[in-house]
C-alpha cells in the first residue's frame, strides 16, 4: 500500500519537529591497517570523553563446560598487564578524575573508561594496554574466581536474577543465550591457560572495535590506536550465532521465593531484530509496555495492581528475547499474564493509532537526546551497534528512522514476532 499524501506530510512534519537546533559532528568509522575498527566522534567543548573497547566473542563463544569464562576474562583485564599491576592501572586513570571498568557480555568483552577530557590520553593508554597485554597471574586469578563465585551466590538474594535464571533455559534450551551458571562447580577447573587461550583468540584485530567520543583530537586518538593495535594478529571473525528455536508449545515455570512482590514475566525467543526493523521494534516495545502505555494503563492505571510494567527486550543480532514483566499481587498473576498475552495479540492484529505512534516517537527521541548528552551514552550506543555488526546511527538518522515507521509496520512486526514462537511464563512467588 502506498503512503498517502497526508501520511507523507505527517512524516515530514515529524522529521522537521525533531530536527535538532545544532547537528552533531560526524561519526567517523574506519578500519585501521591492523583490521581493527575505529569509531570516533568529536564533541568540541563538551569537556568529557568516553572510551568503549569491545573484543567480539563473549558468552556466545564460551564452551558449554566453561560457563563464566567471559566474565572472568573481563575482570582479569584490570588485574594488571606486562608493565602495570592492577593498582597502577586504576591509579593512572583515577588520579586524572576518570573511571575505568570492564564487563563481559553475550557478544563481547568491553573495557570502558570515561571522565574529564584531559584524562583521555592516560585512560586510552591504560585501556589499550589492558586489552593487548593482560598479565593473567594465577594468584590474581584465584582471587577473582573467589569473587565471581561470591557474586553468583549473592545473586540468589535478588528476585530479578532468580527470575531470569529460570526464564533463560526455559526459553532457549541449549542455545548459548540460555545458559546459566550452576551454583555448584562454577568455574571449577578454570585456569590461567584457558584464559590466555580465550584472550589470544578474541583480542585480535578483526574482532576489536574501539569507540572514542568526546572533547578530543581525532587525529591524535587515531595515531595512538593505530600504534597500540598494529601488532595484533588479524585473527578470525567472531563465530556466527544461530537463531534460537521457536517454542512449539507454551512453557511455564515457578520460582519459589519468599517475597512481598510476586513477579510474572511472559516472553518468547526471537531470531533477532534486523537493522531495518530496529526503529519499529523500539516503538512496538514502548507502545506495548512503555511508561503509561497499553499495559501500564491496563494493569496499573485501570486496575491498580502494579507499580511497574516493563518490556524485556534483549537483542543480539540473530538471537534475542522479547517479553513483558510486571509485579502484581499473588492472586493476580494469572490475570496479569492473560492481559499481557491479550495485548500482544491486539498489537499483532491492529495497527496502533497515530497518536500512540507519535507519543512513542517523541518519547524515544527524548530518551535518545538524554543519552546523547553524555559522551559515555553515545560511546555505548555506537559500540552496541558495532557489536551487532550494524553501523552507528546519528541522532538525526534515528529521528528520520522513527519518523518513517508506519503503524502498519509496527503491526506487521508484532505479528511476525508473536506468531513465530509460543511464550514462556515464569512467576516468582
Amino acid at each position, binding site marked *: 500500500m502506498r503512503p498517502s499524501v497526508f501520511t507523507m506530510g505527517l512524516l515530514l512534519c515529524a522529521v522537521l519537529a525533531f530536527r535538532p537546533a545544532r547537528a552533531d559532528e560526524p561519526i567517523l568509522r574506519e578500519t585501521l591497517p591492523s583490521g581493527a575498527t575505529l569509531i570516533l566522534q568529536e564533541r568540541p567543548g563538551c569537556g568529557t570523553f568516553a572510551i568503549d573497547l569491545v573484543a567480539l566473542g563473549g558468552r556466545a563463544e564460551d564452551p558449554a563446560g566453561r560457563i563464566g569464562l567471559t566474565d572472568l576474562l573481563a575482570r582479569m583485564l584490570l588485574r594488571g598487564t606486562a608493565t602495570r599491576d*592492577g*593498582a597502577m592501572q586504576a*591509579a593512572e586513570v583515577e588520579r586524572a578524575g576518570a573511571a575505568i571498568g570492564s564487563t563481559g557480555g553475550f557478544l563481547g568483552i568491553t573495557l570502558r573508561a570515561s*571522565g574529564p577530557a584531559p584524562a583521555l590520553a592516560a585512560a586510552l593508554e591504560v585501556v589499550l594496554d589492558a586489552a593487548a597485554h593482560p598479565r593473567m597471574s594465577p594468584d590474581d586469578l584465584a582471587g577473582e574466581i573467589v*569473587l565471581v563465585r561470591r557474586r553468583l551466590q*549473592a545473586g540468589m538474594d535478588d528476585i530479578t536474577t532468580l527470575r531470569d535464571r529460570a526464564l533463560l533455559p526455559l526459553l532457549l534450551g541449549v542455545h548459548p543465550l540460555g545458559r546459566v551458571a550452576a551454583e555448584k562447580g562454577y568455574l571449577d577447573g578454570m585456569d590461567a591457560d584457558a584464559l590466555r587461550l580465550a584472550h589470544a583468540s578474541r583480542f585480535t584485530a578483526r574482532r576489536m572495535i574501539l569507540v572514542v567520543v568526546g572533547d578530543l583530537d581525532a587525529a591524535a586518538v587515531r595515531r595512538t590506536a593505530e600504534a597500540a593495535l598494529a601488532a595484533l594478529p588479524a585473527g578470525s571473525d567472531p563465530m556466527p550465532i544461530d537463531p534460537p528455536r521457536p517454542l512449539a508449545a507454551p512453557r511455564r515455570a515457578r520460582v519459589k521465593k519468599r517475597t512481598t512482590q510476586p513477579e510474572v514475566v511472559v516472553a518468547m525467543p526471537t531470531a533477532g531484530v534486523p537493522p531495518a526493523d530496529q526503529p519499529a521494534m523500539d516503538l512496538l516495545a514502548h507502545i506495548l509496555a512503555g511508561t503509561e502505555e497499553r499495559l501500564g494503563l491496563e494493569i496499573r*492505571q485501570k486496575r491498580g495492581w502494579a507499580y511497574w510494567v516493563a518490556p524485556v527486550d534483549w537483542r543480539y543480532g540473530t538471537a534475542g528475547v522479547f517479553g513483558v514483566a510486571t*509485579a502484581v499481587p499473588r492472586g493476580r498473576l494469572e490475570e496479569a499474564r492473560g492481559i499481557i498475552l491479550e495485548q500482544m495479540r491486539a498489537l499483532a492484529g491492529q495497527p496502533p493509532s497515530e497518536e500512540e505512534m507519535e507519543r512513542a516517537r517523541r518519547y524515544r527521541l*527524548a530518551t535518545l537526546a538524554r543519552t546523547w548528552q553524555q559522551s559515555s551514552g553515545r560511546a555505548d550506543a555506537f559500540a552496541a551497534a558495532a557489536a551487532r555488526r550494524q553501523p552507528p546511527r546519528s541522532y538525526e538518522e534515528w529521528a528520520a528512522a522513527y519518523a518513517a515507521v508506519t503503524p502498519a509496520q509496527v503491526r506487521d512486526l508484532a505479528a511476525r514476532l508473536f506468531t513465530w514462537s509460543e511464550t514462556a511464563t515464569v512467576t516468582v512467588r
Partner: protein
Amino acid sequence: MVAAAMVWARVGVMAAAAVSVAAAAAVPSPPSPDASLTVIACDNGLTAVIDPRPGSRTVFAEIAVRAGSRDEPLELAGMSHLLEHLLFQEGHGAIARPNPAFSALRQAGALVNASTDFEQTEYHADLPAERFAEGWDALVSMVTRAGFTTADVDRERRVVLQEAALGKTDPVSIVAWSVLGRMFPGDPIAQPVIGFRRSLRRIRHADLMSYYRRFYTPANMFAVIVGDVDPQAAAARVRSTLGALPAGGTAHAPYGKPAVDVRPLYRFRTLVKQSYLLAGALTGGETSPDALELSLLSTLLGEGRTSRLHERLVRREALTDDILEMAFQVSTVGALAAGVAVDPDRQTAAREALLDEMRRLAREPVPVDELASARHRMEGALAREMETNEGIAGFRARRLLLGQPLEREVYLARLASITPDDLLAVARRHWGDGAERPGGLIEIQVLPARGFGKVLAALRFLFFRRL
C-alpha cells in the same frame, strides 16, 4: 514516582592502589555553565533557576516543594508520597479519570517522573526542546491544580501498596528501616517515606488536600529549568505561570535535629544468603559545616578502584567486590557508613578490615597524594553528572533546597581547600576515641538466619509484610 529514602546501595566496581602518585593538578572542568545562570525571585515568593544548555535537544524542568515525610503526622506516614502519585492520575475505565495536564506531558514526549523524600517532593519532565512551552505549562498545571477525587485516592493507594511491597522484598532494606526506627524513635525520620500499609489505609482525601494547601504554595516551592531553551523566554514563561499564582504560604522553616538513641551494634538474623556488614557514624547532615569533608572521607574509603576498601577487600584479600554505601542524608542528620556483602564464612575477616579502615581514618592523616586522587574522583564524578540536563538540575536543585551557593565553582573551590588535617579532625570528631557525635562508631550486621532462627525470621518477614 519514587519514594526515596535510606537505601543501601552497592557501589560499582572499584579498585585500589597503594601506589604513591605525585599529587596531580586539579582536574580541569568542562566549560562552566555557571556564568549563564538566571535566578528569578517572583513576587509571590517563588524562586526559579534557569540554566541554558544550547544544543542539548531537551529541557529538564523541575518543580520542587519543600515538604516531605518529615512533615507528616506519624499516623499518616506515606501521605506526601501518595499525594505525589495522585497529581499524576490518569487512566481509563469506570473509576479512572483523565488528567489533561499529564496527558499533555505524555503527548509532548516528555519523560515525566517525581520523587518524594524526607524533606522534599519534586516533579519533573525532560522535554523535547521544541515542546518546552506546552510541556512546562502542563507540568505547572499538574502540580498546582490538583483535582483528584476520593475514588482516585482509593485506586492509587493500591498502586502505592504495590510500590511499598517492592521495598519489602529486600530483607536488608527492612533492616535499614528497623535501625532508623530504633535510632530516631517517635520521629518521622524513623518511618519509611512510602509509609506503612496501616498508615496508608488511614489517609483520607481531606488529609491530602489539607497537606496540599499547606505546603504547595509559591513561597514554599522552587523551579529549576536546564536545557536547550532561551533563558529570557523561559523566564517569561515562569513568571506568567508559577510566578503569577496568588501569593500564599511561607517558605518551610529549617528542620530541627531529631532526638537520637544510638547503640554501638545492631545485629539482625534474617533470610539472606550473604552477610551484610556496615560500619559508620551519625553526622550533622547536609547543612553541617563538615558535610563536604565527610563526602571526601566516604570517597577515600569506598568510591573507586583506588579506594581503601577496594584495595584491601577486593584486590588484596579477595573477600568481596560488593562494597555497600548507606545513603541516608537529610539537612540536619545523616550517616557516613561503608559496608560489604560477604560470604558468611568470611565475615570475621571482612568485619575486621572494615572497622580497621574506618578507625585508620580517625587515627592518621591521609597522605597528600591519596587525598588528591580522591578529590579528583569527586571532581570527575561531578563532571560526568553535569553532562546531562538532569544531572545539572539535580545539582542546582539540591543546593537551592539547602540554601547553598548554586555554582559548581564554589563547590569545587571548597573541595580543593580541604587538607589532610581537616579530614583527620572530622573523622576523630565523629568516630574517633572520645567522639563528639552521639554513638561514635556504629555497626550494623545482617546475617543469615540458621536453624530455628530461619522460622523466626520467616515469621518476622511475614509480620513486616503486613505492616
